[in-house]
């Protein structure tokens, strides 16, 4: 018991004293960290706070400029006579709450002195190597969630079944096309088209009493909700460039989704007015 206590306190002391030697080392770590945090869908204020927290722990100061695709970080030592700047491109890792949470926990572990610099770098590499969620599980759960949306909007059982089928097919197509590296805008257009056609089954085969709900909710899984929410958050925190970038990105995807939906409605000769 005494040995374990001694070992734990030794490890804690090592962690508390293990810091980056130079602003360069800190800057490279922080810029890599910030790029991954931005790429996984964090808001600008979260990135700023996390990075500042870690820099302060190491006795340094940091300032950053967050752009839609890049982050520019400058780190000074406490005397402000030595600095290092770095520009990194954001990592297109896809939105991941798991990576977001783990990166935030890492920043707190560093700030609380529980993790030294060397261990932080290893932890960051481990987080970067995180495998994405099981795609089949995501496929099923997203379809069930969209089906639930249909129910929330007043759809009956037939509409819910139609939306489930439309989402299963559309989401699988989305996964397949993204795996093949196709442009995400084209992917959204195609998925919205096919999902809306399947969602129009209520009109074609006269299933249920709420075919309009099925048609409307069949493409909801494609709505880029997180970019819109993050855009508003960045707007409130004064990061206007990032906010506008995220908003435009989401708007383009929504336009592609709408075009696919319109295409499906035209093909099915459904008058939506």
């Amino acid at each position, binding site marked *: 018991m005494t040995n374990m206590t001694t070992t734990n306190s030794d490890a804690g002391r090592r962690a508390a004293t293990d810091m980056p030697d130079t602003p360069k080392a800190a800057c490279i770590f922080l810029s890599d960290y910030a790029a991954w945090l931005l790429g996984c869908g964090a808001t600008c204020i979260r990135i700023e706070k996390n990075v500042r927290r870690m820099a302060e722990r190491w006795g340094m100061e940091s300032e950053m400029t967050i752009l839609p695709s890049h982050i520019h970080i400058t780190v000074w030592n406490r005397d402000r006579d030595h600095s290092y700047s770095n520009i990194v491109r954001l990592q297109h890792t896809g939105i991941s709450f798991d990576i977001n949470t783990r990166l935030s926990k890492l920043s707190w572990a560093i700030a609380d002195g529980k993790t030294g610099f060397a261990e932080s770098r290893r932890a960051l590499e481990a987080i970067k190597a995180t495998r994405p969620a099981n795609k089949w599980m995501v496929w099923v759960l997203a379809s069930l969630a969209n089906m639930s949306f249909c129910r929330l909007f007043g759809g009956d059982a037939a509409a819910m079944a139609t939306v489930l089928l439309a989402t299963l*097919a559309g989401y699988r*197509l989305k996964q397949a096309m993204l795996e093949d590296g196709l442009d995400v805008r084209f992917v959204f257009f195609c998925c919205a088209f*096919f999902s809306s*056609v*399947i969602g129009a089954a209520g*009109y074609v*085969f006269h299933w249920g009493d709420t075919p309009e709900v099925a048609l409307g909710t069949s493409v909801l899984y494609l709505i880029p909700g997180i970019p819109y929410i993050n855009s508003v958050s960045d707007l409130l925190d004064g990061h206007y460039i990032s906010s506008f970038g995220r908003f435009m990105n989401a708007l383009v995807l929504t336009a592609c989704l709408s075009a696919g939906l319109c295409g499906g409605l035209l*093909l*099915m000769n459904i008058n939506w007015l």
Partner: protein
Amino acid sequence: MNQQTTAWILTVGCLFLIFIFRSIQHMRKETGHSRILEIGNEDALYDEYDDNEL
């Protein structure tokens, strides 16, 4: 069967065919029988009877 139903069946059938084709392509890659798809990639083709080097 009216025009609307025909369009629906054709579209859904097309999507179904895309999935089937993709599955076949996937299986071919996994089993190594994908050379038939390497059209024009002649560097990858080996003729065991080519004895120009002898």
